[in-house]
């Protein structure tokens, strides 16, 4: 038990643990919708787009959450608008917007000196810089996202399952799409410090994918995804502390390990299901 208590002597760990566990669960909630709507690329792209805003706000001396927040909202709304158009491939258009924003961040960094350490922290996540404000922000965003998901659970489910038909049934899909893009942007901004730009996409995707392997019910998938995200955030922080590796990497590696076990454990069920349907298992 000593190894569990030992890191609590450090304030950065206490803050980091709360942020990592909440960030894991938060990404898992939003990620469930991201995965089921085949929007994984948007999550990945948005994280990169916001990186540009984070760098710009740092160099301009603007508070990270204000600068990156405004940048994130603008990027999310632009990505959402582009994704709804038919004339060009949504993936290609999103790629242009988000990589251009990311490239701007890299360009600004390359002009600034003594920024290397922060650059790595932004890319791969670092709990050393987690402060009280970060804890408050990630908990606040998690509460807002949870509240919105609970209140709008049913329209969001319909929108995720069948967007075109949901519109005919009276679901205001354009508004919900825009709202979801904002929730996604807020999630990325709130978790960037601990997870890192390059690893947020994994934290959004892996817990829901594991949950999907384990259930055929949406509600159960959502709950399992949150549990997996939170537990892996918690466990990843201990790994990060004891192995002295980046927190984002530790959390994502924990999730990848859980995925491997879940995949192997459910392989038998999938083969049995195929056999019962008369399909040869491969």
């Amino acid at each position: 038990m000593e190894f569990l208590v030992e890191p609590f002597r450090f304030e950065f760990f206490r803050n980091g643990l709360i942020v990592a566990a909440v960030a894991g669960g938060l990404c898992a909630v939003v990620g469930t919708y991201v995965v089921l709507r085949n929007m994984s690329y948007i999550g990945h792209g948005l994280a990169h787009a916001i990186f540009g805003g984070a760098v710009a706000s740092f160099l301009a001396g603007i508070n990270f959450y204000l600068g990156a927040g405004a940048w994130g909202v603008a990027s999310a709304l632009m990505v959402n608008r582009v994704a709804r158009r038919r004339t060009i491939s949504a993936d290609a258009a999103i790629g242009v917007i988000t990589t251009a924003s990311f490239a701007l961040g890299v360009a600004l960094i390359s002009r600034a000196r003594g920024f290397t350490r922060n650059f790595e922290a932004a890319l791969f996540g670092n709990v050393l810089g987690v402060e009280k404000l970060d804890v408050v922000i990630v908990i606040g965003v998690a509460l807002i996202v949870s509240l919105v998901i609970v209140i709008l659970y049913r329209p969001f489910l319909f929108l995720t399952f069948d967007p075109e038909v949901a519109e005919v049934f009276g679901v205001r899909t354009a508004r919900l799409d825009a709202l979801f893009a904002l929730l996604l942007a807020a999630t990325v901004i709130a978790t960037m410090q601990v997870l890192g730009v390059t690893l947020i996409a994994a934290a959004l995707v892996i817990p829901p994918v594991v949950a999907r392997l384990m259930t055929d019910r949406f509600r159960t998938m959502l709950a399992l995804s949150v549990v997996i995200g939170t537990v892996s955030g918690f466990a990843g922080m201990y790994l990060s502390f004891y192995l002295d590796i980046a927190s984002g990497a530790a959390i994502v590696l924990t999730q990848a390990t859980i995925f491997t076990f879940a995949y192997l454990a459910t392989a038998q069920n999938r083969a049995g299901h195929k056999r019962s349907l008369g399909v040869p298992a491969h």
Partner: protein
Amino acid sequence: MSNDRSRDSVVALRNVSFAYDRDVVLSDLSLEVMRGSLLGVVGPSGSGKTTLLKLLGGGLDPSLGSVESSPSLRIGYVPQVDTVNWYFPVTVDEVVLMGSSAGRRLGLRYGAEERDRAHTLLHDLGIGHLEPRHIRELSGGQQQRVFVARALMADPNLVLLDEPMAGVDVKTRQDVLATLRDIAERGVAVVLTTHDLNSVAAHLPEVMCINRRLIAQGPPGSTLVPDVLYETFGAEMELIEHHGHPIVIDKHPDPVVVPIQRKADGIPG
């Protein structure tokens, strides 16, 4: 228009045209859907059938013309089964309960009244025992009925169905059409698209032939005639009558008589 007629009108398209960018999919089409009507829309692929349903359902706004709908319009929509994501983690009861969401119901839980209604609808459609099953585990006909139940869950006065007979067996097709007749008899307007001309001829009182514009509309007996079918599909077809219903068959340009072999080699006849 008489007052009775306006009371019975559920939705009407007035000289509607619709284009995706510069591609005009429907041109100058008018249609009035009346309470309790059962209308089949036929036409070749790309003729604008699904677009017509979306215009009626409010999912699309016309490029030209207008859509007039009753203030009390409530729509139930049944999509083409091949557009459904069958790997989505959702069970039969969850799909049906979506119908009562309609963007207005909020919160995480479904009410007892909604659950009872969903159960009754599924039971009436003969699939009550499948409630907890994943939608992928059902047969084609059962899946079709799940989406009909979801449409009815919205307590609609207009049900729109996109290709409900596609890929289903004969028994399922007959069951689906019987269900739709029952729905229409309760005063609900039903509009469906299909490629199955003979089902339309045998089961529906009214048919509309379109190919990016209205070609003809009326009872199948007077509408499904060779000239109209040629104009609609660009293919020559012949009609024979059976029990008062037209049966549409392809016209072969050079009839080939294939002798029926009464006795296969080595097999006793």
